[in-house]
């Protein structure tokens, strides 16, 4: 920088002051929070409020695109927002002495996660690795293959689309007690629930995607004399990719939900759903929240990987444009 002030671009000083302010207020708040016997007077809430306002201000200037750190705003802004929410959660829980049954403070949950890592890991393996992910793969693959078959044979498509539309609107989770009876208490029944839940969204979305290629492009394929398979691979599958990834993402959350809720209907003494339902019964809400934190991290990682894959595959789609 030559020292000239670029119009509309904020100087380093402003950023410095923002950081300095939030550091001061943050330190104050942290001291109050670590003390654990907060003065619940107006000063405590004023500091909490100031912290929130300062954090919001930083986010506002970051996302305005004029900050020196604007390049990092994409991941910095939500990070600051989430961090602020955590701090406020902690501050409100301690300051207002919220009962643990209602809402435990994040620090309590983190302590519980650290204290019972082996249990949480065993639950994670049972529910996510054994039930959710295999079920998700099988359900998505089966839905995709049937969609291709429907596309090839028009009679099948015309028969199955209305049924698929109907079934994908049903509360499929209700099938969980039946599948638990059929496949036993262990992970097989949970995987089966996930298969049933993920199958129809994939079928319906893939069919919608295969129908989404434009008439012009399809006519071009026809004038090239392309076979069904050739047109599928070169035109219609790529055009269907946004829909397929949509279904994969929907199904990722459905798979987690299905695997956990199926455990409410009977399970061996391990698994996230089992943990949640038993610990709720014992009013050990910190353990429930710890399990949910694990589930949240696992679900987000699952989803995040799919988003990355989607960006790599459907970079051409208008929804991927920024700005």
């Amino acid at each position, binding site marked *: 920088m030559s020292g000239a002030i670029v119009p509309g671009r904020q100087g380093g000083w402003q950023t410095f002051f923002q950081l300095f302010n939030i550091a001061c207020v943050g330190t104050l708040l942290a001291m109050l929070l670590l003390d654990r016997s907060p003065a619940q007077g107006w000063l405590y809430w004023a500091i909490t409020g100031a912290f929130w306002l300062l954090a919001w201000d930083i*986010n506002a200037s*970051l*996302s305005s695109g004029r900050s020196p750190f604007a390049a990092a705003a*994409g991941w910095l*802004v*939500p990070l600051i927002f989430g961090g602020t*929410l955590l701090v406020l959660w902690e501050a409100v829980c301690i300051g207002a002495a919220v*009962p643990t*049954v*209602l809402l435990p403070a994040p620090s309590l949950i983190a302590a519980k996660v650290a204290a019972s890592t082996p249990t949480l890991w065993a639950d994670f393996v049972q529910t996510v690795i054994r039930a959710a992910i295999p079920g998700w793969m099988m359900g998505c693959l089966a839905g995709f293959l049937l969609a291709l078959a429907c596309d090839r044979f028009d*009679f*099948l*498509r*015309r*028969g*199955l*689309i*209305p*049924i698929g*539309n*109907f079934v994908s*609107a*049903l*509360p499929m*989770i*209700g099938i969980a*007690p*039946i599948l*638990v*009876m059929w496949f036993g208490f262990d992970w097989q029944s949970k995987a089966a629930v996930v298969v049933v839940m993920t199958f*129809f*969204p994939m079928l*319906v*979305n893939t069919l*919608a995607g295969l129908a989404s290629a434009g008439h012009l492009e399809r006519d071009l394929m026809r004038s090239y004399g392309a076979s069904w398979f050739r047109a599928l691979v070169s035109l219609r599958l790529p055009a269907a990719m*946004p*829909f397929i990834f*949509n279904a994969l993402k*929907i199904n*990722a*959350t459905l798979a*987690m*939900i299905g695997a*956990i*809720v199926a455990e*409410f*209907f009977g399970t061996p003494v391990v698994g*996230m*759903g089992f943990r*949640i*339902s038993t610990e*709720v019964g014992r009013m050990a*809400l910190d353990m429930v929240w710890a399990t*949910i934190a694990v*589930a*949240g991290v696992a*679900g*987000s990682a699952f*989803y995040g990987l799919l988003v990355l894959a989607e960006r790599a595959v459907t970079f051409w789609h208008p*929804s991927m444009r920024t700005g």
Partner: protein
Amino acid sequence: MSAASSAHVGAPAGRDGSAIPVLVITALILAAWYAACLPMNSNLPQLQNAAGDLMARYQIAWALERPVLPAPHQIVVELYNATIGTSLFRQTADGMVPNPRNLSFHAWVTLSATLLGFVIGSVLGIAIAVGIVHSRTLSKSLMPWVIVSQTIPILAIAPIIIVALGSVGLTGLVPKSIISAYLCFFPVTIGMVKGLTSPDTMQLDLMRTYNGSAAQTFWKLRWPAAMPFLFASLKVAITISLVGAIVGELPTGAQAGLGARLLSGSYFGQTIQIWAALFYAAVLAALLVVTITAAERATLRAMGARP
């Protein structure tokens, strides 16, 4: 307009021709179901001891008391008995009260939570979407967390919500509706953000050329453009709102509701009762989606869309 929304539910059945393919496929599924009744139930004592030819064994398999897989007609009979065949109210010392043996009573309990949750969730979802579209800071801060909020299996939080709200004295309808609302705000937010940002640069530039205010741009361009997206989202939202209400009844051992029927059926091995509750929920879901589809058609027609 190809809204890459989730499941395009409720598409008209008869659009590409006749209903024959649907009927044929349905008949095939039913036939497979009836055929599967014998192998699925063959481990039950009634069938292990049964002598006779295949037809005789099938007749036993289709009329079992507590089968592993009931025959479709058994479910229909149970549905009939539990709805039309049972009185909706019964006489007690306190006068007429809803009869818990009637499945429609349970369905109403679940439906009321579903509808309340759907309204709360949709309004919340639209509000968040409007905020996200209009505030850059909000968009950048909130949007990733809206998505993260869904990757957390929300239904797993259902027990917590019920216990936490129960500890402050809220029981029954409200906690279930909150679970439903939490579930169904997401598709509405995502769909509406897509819909409200769907007008392209040319159209937005035109509004600017006309010197349209932000409010005018919203009401005359963004909101109408978002309508197809809104209804696609609402159809998804109403069905998962129903799921939320049903699951909300599971963890606390609720006394009434379709979820309670599922749970008690699974405790006592009453498979036919489970299937009947499931079918009732399916009919309910279908009716809800049909209602939204009708509202969609009416709205889009009023806006001048050609069917």
